[in-house]
């Protein structure tokens, strides 16, 4: 089963948001998507997840256009965790994760013990087992994020798409969550805003800017001083450690503009 975009463009009304994105997700990899705010990461991911239909080009799952596969079937192969999704409903953690079984249930195949087992397992794999009977609104941000991931895992997907999964988490929980996701036996596509995290966890990185996919490759190929300067407008040195991992060291003071400076400042010097 493969997941692929071919020359995909997506418009909001008459506004071109992303254009000409071609991307082939390799089975079993952890693919990071990076790019400045507004560069089209979320838009690209929702086309990749089959939530939005491409305006031009094709989105394919297993060499079939997603349009032909249908929502319900797509949801059995692709789990999607949005950038932000909350609810005011009084719902337990277990019920929230149980929603992940929606694409498998119908009048003829009602909820069964098998579904219970999958929900338990999904909770366990994000280490939220003890929280199963807690109410959603009593969870912390990091716990909510894990439950969202468990919900997506309950879909038993081949591909897990995560849009900025570490937003609003402290550094400990950011790293914990990414480690956990990396250890899962699924193919992961994750939009990440911390470039050092992208360097640490990704097998490949897709770099977006202005609605275009401008580079795709290993962290060492993508995270170069030149690229960071051109795309993020930050001055940075890249160090490669003895394990071949990239580390990014930002320089304060000579960024392109104040708006962009924020991106740099959010990432502490490592």
């Amino acid at each position, binding site marked *: 089963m493969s997941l692929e975009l071919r020359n995909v463009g997506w418009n909001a009304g008459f506004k071109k948001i992303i254009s000409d994105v071609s991307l082939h997700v390799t089975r079993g990899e952890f693919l990071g998507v990076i790019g400045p705010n507004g560069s089209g990461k979320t838009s690209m991911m*929702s086309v990749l*997840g*089959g*939530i939005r239909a491409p305006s031009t080009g094709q989105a394919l799952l297993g060499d079939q256009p997603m349009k032909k596969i249908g*929502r*319900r*079937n*797509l*949801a*059995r192969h*692709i*789990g*999607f965790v*949005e950038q932000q*999704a*909350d*609810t*005011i*409903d*009084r*719902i337990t953690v*277990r*019920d*929230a994760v*149980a*929603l*992940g079984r*929606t*694409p498998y*249930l119908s*009048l003829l195949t*009602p*909820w*069964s*013990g098998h*579904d*219970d*087992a999958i*929900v*338990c*397992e*999904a*909770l*366990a*794999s994000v*280490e939220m*087992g*003890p929280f*199963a009977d807690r109410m959603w*609104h009593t969870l912390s941000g990091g716990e909510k994020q894990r439950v*969202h991931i468990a919900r*997506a*895992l309950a*879909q*038993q*997907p*081949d591909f897990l798409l995560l849009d900025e999964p570490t937003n609003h988490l402290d550094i400990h929980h950011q790293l914990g969550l990414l480690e956990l996701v990396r250890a*899962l*036996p*699924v193919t992961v596509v994750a939009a990440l805003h911390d470039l050092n995290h992208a360097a640490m966890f990704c097998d490949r990185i897709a770099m977006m800017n202005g609605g275009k996919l401008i580079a795709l490759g290993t962290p060492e190929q993508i995270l170069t001083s030149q690229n960071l300067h051109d795309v993020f407008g930050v001055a940075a040195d890249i160090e490669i450690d003895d394990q071949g991992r990239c580390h990014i060291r930002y320089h304060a003071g000579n960024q392109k503009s104040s708006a962009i400076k924020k991106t740099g400042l959010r990432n502490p010097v490592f």
Partner: protein
Amino acid sequence: MFETTPVQQPVQPPRQSLAGRAYLARAGVSLGALVLLVGVIAMAAAKGETHIPLGTVFQTIANHLWQAGYDVDPIDAGIIWNYRISRAMVAAACGASLALSGAVLQALLRNSLADPYLLGISAGASTGAVSVAILGFGAGMVSLSLGAFVGALVAFGFVALLAIPAGRGAGAIILAGVAGSQLFNALTSFIVTKAATADEARGVMFWLLGNLSGVRWPDVYLALPVAVIGLLVCLWYSRALDAFTFGVESAASLGVPVRRVYVVLIAIAASMTAVMVSIVGSIGFVGLVIPHAARFFVGTRHGFLLPASALIGAVFLVAADIVSRIILDGQVLPIGVITALIGAPAFAIILCHGRVLR
């Protein structure tokens, strides 16, 4: 594929299976509500200006349903069967439909304050009703009810047309609904002010606040099937409604055909509401409060919430109708006054208990 990997950490299995969890309790509540519904309809048949014993009520029903041949005073039997039972049945269908529409709209629009009249339906119905009653549209050939029904549909169409180019989202629908309601309410006021005599204005007011006194069996034949079909369609989509818990995009990622669900369920809610409003006027608060009350008893999963809302709504409206008939001697209070008198404080209590808005 996320396969059956060994569980790293023991997770307590649900106390019962999720399907079976609290199933008995909830089934019990539903069964209880059904018994309550039959009971309250029987009460509605017994109470009124002339009190008739419950035994006579059941005998009359038995006579009509399976020719039981009990000896019942024909006048009592006429009151029970032709006036009170039909009236109670319509009240039940109406309460169920309004509560159901409210529950569905609250789920789809992700808004605790959504109610069936949000779609402009009651405002449109009132405009339609005054157009017939005061302006004389249809020259006496068209009933108040038909006028209200047409008005409701026109207003709903207006709201839908407004919402679609505005982006189709929940926010757009709510804003379009508010705009549409204001417009049609203003039209109603305009017509009443310009053309109505004081008596006509009072009559229309009374009708708008909800009025079950003209209800007969033909109304039951319309209201009951609409309520039952509405309930079945909504139940068919109950899992889809659950999937909206975390919003539209999340529902889409769970494989729900979001647009179709929106169109079908909003159309169903609008039709149910339009039919009920055209029969009994716009009874407030049922569609807003009952779904919250139902959530209090059975939780937020729609497989339970929808039937519970329908049953509680039905019981509530039949009970409210009884109260409206006996609270003032020799006078019937509009039922909408009762529902608001009970509904507003009930809503305040629910609100304070944080069940609605955290």
